[in-house]
Structures are given as structure tokens and as C-alpha cells.
């Protein structure tokens, strides 16, 4: 009897041990939050999508979810080209990218202090004129017509323009002019950007990046702005 019992006890102890270990391992899990899931975005875009000191990486927080979603899809499918982003998103589903977009759209971290302008008053004035009034002579609509009088963007697909640095803004406008950044047809930003001269781009970027944080960081509700041209990203 004793002879039989001993191996049985030993066997039980062996069986019990791995189960105990497995339970110990499963207790500590990653936080079940979107913040933890999108930590991969933080080094370039900030922990709350507020942007970082690197001027080439844009603020994501508080941009309309439809705009962010369109960009995530475009990066995933390679239509918008930036290899580090294309690589990270390559194997994610539409549903998940939508959740990521909604997450960043819902955040309202503080805006960074505006960069003291390094450009001349004339350049800033030219930028302000284009942003607020456009340039009728060259057929350029004002930025504020679609991006809103407060430049906070409009749901679902038009982004806010504040809290971004000049090099990022001029990089994107340049991308549209040269066709390396595209959107759904009709690609209104491609049309607008191709009307701008290099000096216009510089002026708009200088002015926008010099603006202080808006009093109300929200975007305009869908359909609330009469847009001067049709945009594939902003269906009526």
C-alpha cells in the first residue's frame, strides 16, 4: 500500500506544480485599453497623440475620426507612402483601424506652445490672407472654407490644421502637388495644392504653425460648412 501511495503522491505533486505556475503567469495581463494597444504610436505622435518634438510627425489628437481612418487605410494599403507607417499597419483590419481612429479623435491633450515665427511679417501676412480669404485671382479657396473658421476641421474627413509644425504642413502640401500624397477622387487637396506656388506653401505653413491653440479644440459638425469644391474624402 505504501509502495503504491508514494508514486501517486509524487505524480499529484508534479501535476499540481505546472497548474500553479500557469495560474501565476496568467494573472498579470496587459491593460485592456486602447492606450496600451496604440503605445506603438507614442514615440512619434505622443502618448495621447499630441505630437512630439519631432516636427515631421503630426498631432493626431482631436482630428475627426473619418480623416484619421482614411489615413490609416491609405497607409495600410500603401496609397499614402511612409514605410514605417506602412509596415506597422500592414496586417490590421478595417474594424481595428476604425477603433484606433475613433480613439485618437476623442482625445483632447493640450496643444504645444506655438513656434515663434522665424519668417518675415510679409510672409506671415501672405499666409494669413490665403488661410482666411484665399486668392481669388488664382482660384485658390480659403483654407477656412473647408477646415473651419477656427481651423479645427470638420467631421467626418477634414482635419484640423493647428498644432502642426511648418515642415509637416509644407511637406504634405508638397506631397499633394507632386502626387505622392493622394486622396479619394475628387482629390480636392490635390487641386488646391497644385494652385499654390512654393512661396504660397511656405507662407501658409509659416502662418498656420504660428497660431496659438484654439479656444475650442473641437471640429465642426458634418455638413456645417458650405464647401467651395467637392472632396472625395468628405461625402455630402
Amino acid at each position: 500500500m505504501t509502495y503504491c501511495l508514494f508514486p501517486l503522491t509524487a505524480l499529484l505533486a508534479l501535476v499540481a506544480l505546472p497548474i500553479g505556475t500557469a495560474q501565476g503567469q496568467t494573472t498579470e495581463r496587459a491593460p485592456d485599453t486602447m492606450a496600451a494597444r496604440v503605445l506603438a504610436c507614442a514615440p512619434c505622435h505622443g502618448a495621447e497623440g499630441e505630437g512630439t518634438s519631432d516636427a515631421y510627425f503630426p498631432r493626431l489628437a482631436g482630428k475627426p475620426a473619418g480623416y484619421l481612418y482614411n489615413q490609416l487605410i491609405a497607409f495600410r494599403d500603401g496609397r499614402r507612402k511612409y514605410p514605417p507607417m506602412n509596415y506597422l499597419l500592414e496586417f490590421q483590419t478595417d474594424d481595428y483601424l476604425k477603433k484606433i481612429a475613433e480613439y485618437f479623435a476623442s482625445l483632447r491633450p493640450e496643444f504645444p506652445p506655438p513656434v515663434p515665427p522665424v519668417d518675415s511679417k510679409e510672409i506671415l501676412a501672405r499666409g494669413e490672407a490665403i488661410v482666411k480669404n484665399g486668392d481669388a485671382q488664382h482660384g485658390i479657396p480659403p483654407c477656412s472654407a473647408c477646415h473651419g473658421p477656427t481651423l479645427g476641421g470638420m467631421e467626418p474627413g477634414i482635419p484640423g490644421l493647428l498644432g502642426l509644425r511648418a515642415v509637416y504642413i509644407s511637406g504634405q502640401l508638397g506631397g499633394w502637388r507632386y502626387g505622392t500624397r493622394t486622396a479619394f477622387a475628387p482629390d480636392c487637396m490635390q487641386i488646391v495644392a497644385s494652385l499654390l506656388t512654393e512661396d504660397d506653401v511656405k507662407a501658409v505653413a509659416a502662418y498656420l504653425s504660428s497660431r496659438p491653440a484654439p479656444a475650442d479644440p473641437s471640429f465642426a459638425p458634418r455638413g456645417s460648412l458650405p464647401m467651395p469644391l467637392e472632396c472625395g474624402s468628405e461625402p455630402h
Partner: protein
Amino acid sequence: MSRTSTGLLIGLMLALSPVTTLAQQKAADPAVIAKGEYLARAGDCIACHTAREGKTFAGGLAMKTPFGTLYTSNITPDPQTGIGTWTSDQFYQMMHNGRFPDGGLVYPAMPFASYTQVTREDSDAIYAYLRTVPPVRQPNRPHDLTFPFNNRSLILGWRTLFFREGEFKPDPTKSAEWNRGNYLVEGLGHCGMCHTPINALGGSRQSQAFEGGLIPMQNWYAPSLTSNKETGLGDWTIEEIVDYLRKGVSAKGAVYGPMAEVVYNSLQYLNDDDVRAMAVYLKGLAQGGPPEKASTALPSAESSLLLSLGKSIYDRDCASCHGATGQGMPPDYPPLAGNQSIQMVSAVNPIRMVLNGGYPPGTSGNPMPYGMPPFAQKLSDDEVAAVVTYIRTAWGNRGEPVSARQANELRAATLN
């Protein structure tokens, strides 16, 4: 009267029979089509035969190889530009023998050296399925290969060296499950295309099957499936292997890089029995052996400096997720202690993960994966080398140190 009608009847039957056969061929059994769709998933046809934002199965995806760029072909049933005029015999000849209907040789980027194992019945099911996908009129783009590789007759030489034609033969001494796993891994799964060392001629070395290798042009290392020092799965439970293959994450580690594509497009769609069979077969590939002792070589002054820098970077940037002792929070924050992919002879994968970060694929079993942040913009080459050296040697891990130069070289690796 009766003679006439009989004759008429026979005449009608004769006239009808070929039509019936043709109709049957066109409208195959829905069960066969569904099986074909499933098997096409197992073979991951879509990954290569569909371009980014392109029409499904219309081809046109650029495949960079050391010999030039190949463009994948249109396999929709369009009669002019796809495979709409192919018979099931011709389709089988392609799968089984790597030859076009006119007898021409197929470049071995098409894994016919693996697909040759696929049974005629399964090939016919895939064929039946592909006839039901929407036809796309899109001519194939000519390959852009450098001399002398643009000469198709060279494929004959390659075939002599590396191609062994033959359908899968079950091993009667093994279980049905093992045989099913063997069939899927070696055949449709074409795992050996990456997990076997590639020689200078682009051939898989069969003598070193599943011993791992650097994937040309992609700069990811496909680990050995036979050595427990790498990703030999001998120490994994079947459940862990199943999770890894189907969900993309497991208690032992997660998939990134090219393997994320395989899970995303193929393995997550396979049924539980088939994934389990693959797991059983893969686990059996691992060659047993006692675990090696931790390296006892005393660190030189230089590597001890590297390690102390590595530890301080680890504690600052990595420990909040991967734990102070590398235990991670599996499955979402993979463990680093005891993780084979960190300790492999090739340090390519851990260096790339630190530089580029990465997300496991979004799958039905893990729809909202957690991402590893990229550190290329934050850490210098020295710092990358230090932290990778630290995780390769800390907590009983037995990897070799890496140099700043290795880290620097991988900054230029193609990302996507």
C-alpha cells in the same frame, strides 16, 4: 415507332451527354468549391496573386528577388488574361509539375516544389473555386529579371537540382493527425520556402529542410523549425503552437514580419483540426536534446560596459511592458526571457523589432493586437546594440552580443 423513338432517344442522349459534362464542369458542386476556397487559403494564394489595392487574384504584385523583379500572374477565370481557358488537367500540371499549359517552365517563386505534394483531388477543388471568383481583365506584367536569369531555360537546371515531383505519401507508421499536418506544412503551406536555408541559386536545400534562413530581400530571419535553440517547437505545448499559428500571439511569443502576413491571409482561416495537425507535425520536427547551459564566458570590459548601458536602456524603455526580468505579460507583451527568437544565432529579428517595432496581425482570435513601438528614431546604433545584447544575454538567455554595425546595417532594411 418504338424503334424510331428509341433511336431518337439514344440520339438525344448522345447529343446531351457532352453538354451535361460541360455544364457539370462549369457548375461544380458547392461543397467542392467551398473546399477549394479553404484550400486556397491554406496555400495562401491571395498573398502573392493580389497586388496592394488590386483586384483579388488578378496578380501584378512585384516580388523582388536577388535575380530581379517578378510580377505575379492573373489567376482569375478571365479567358484572355487569366486562366479562364485552362482545364483542370492543366491546372494540376502547373501545381504538380510547375509547367504552363504550353509546357513552358514556371519560375520557382511559385512554390510548385511544395505544391507538387498536393493531391489531384485538392488541386481540382482549388481549380473549381478559382473558376468562381470574379474574372478580371488585367494582362500579366512581364518580369524584370537581370541577365542571365531572364533566360527561362535556366529553370531546367534549377529543377534538376532542387525539384522533386511527387504527390504526398502518408507515412503509415504515424498518426492520421501527424500525416495531415505533414501534408499541410510541406504541401500547400509551403513553409519550407522561408524556413529552409536558401542557397546562391535560390534553391531550398532539402538536406537542411526547415533549418531556417535569412529571407532574401526582406531581411527577416525565418527561424529553424528543427532546432530547439531557435524556433524548434519541442518545448512548446500544442496549445501554444495553435495560438501562435491561428491568433498570431501565444504565451511563448508573437508573429511579426513576413510570418504576420501568413497568419493574416492564411492560417487564421484554417479550422481547429488542421491547425492542430500542423502543430503536432511541427512539434515533431524539433530535434530533442538537453538544454544548453548558459554561456559561462566572462564578459570582457567592453561587453560589460555594453551590458550596463543595455540594462539602463531596458529599464527605462522596455521593462514597463516586458517586465524587469523579461517575463512579459503574455500573450500581448511577449516574454523575452527564454524566448528563442531573441537568442538565435542570427540577431536580425530582435534588432529589427527594436528599430521598427511591429504589430502582430489582426485576426479573429486577436482582433485588436498590441503594438511594439519603434525605437529607430530614439536610440543610436550603440544603444540598439547595447539593449539587444542585454536581452540576448540576461535572465539566462544564451544569445551572442551584437555590434553597433549590425544595428546600423538593418536601419536600411526594406520595411514594406
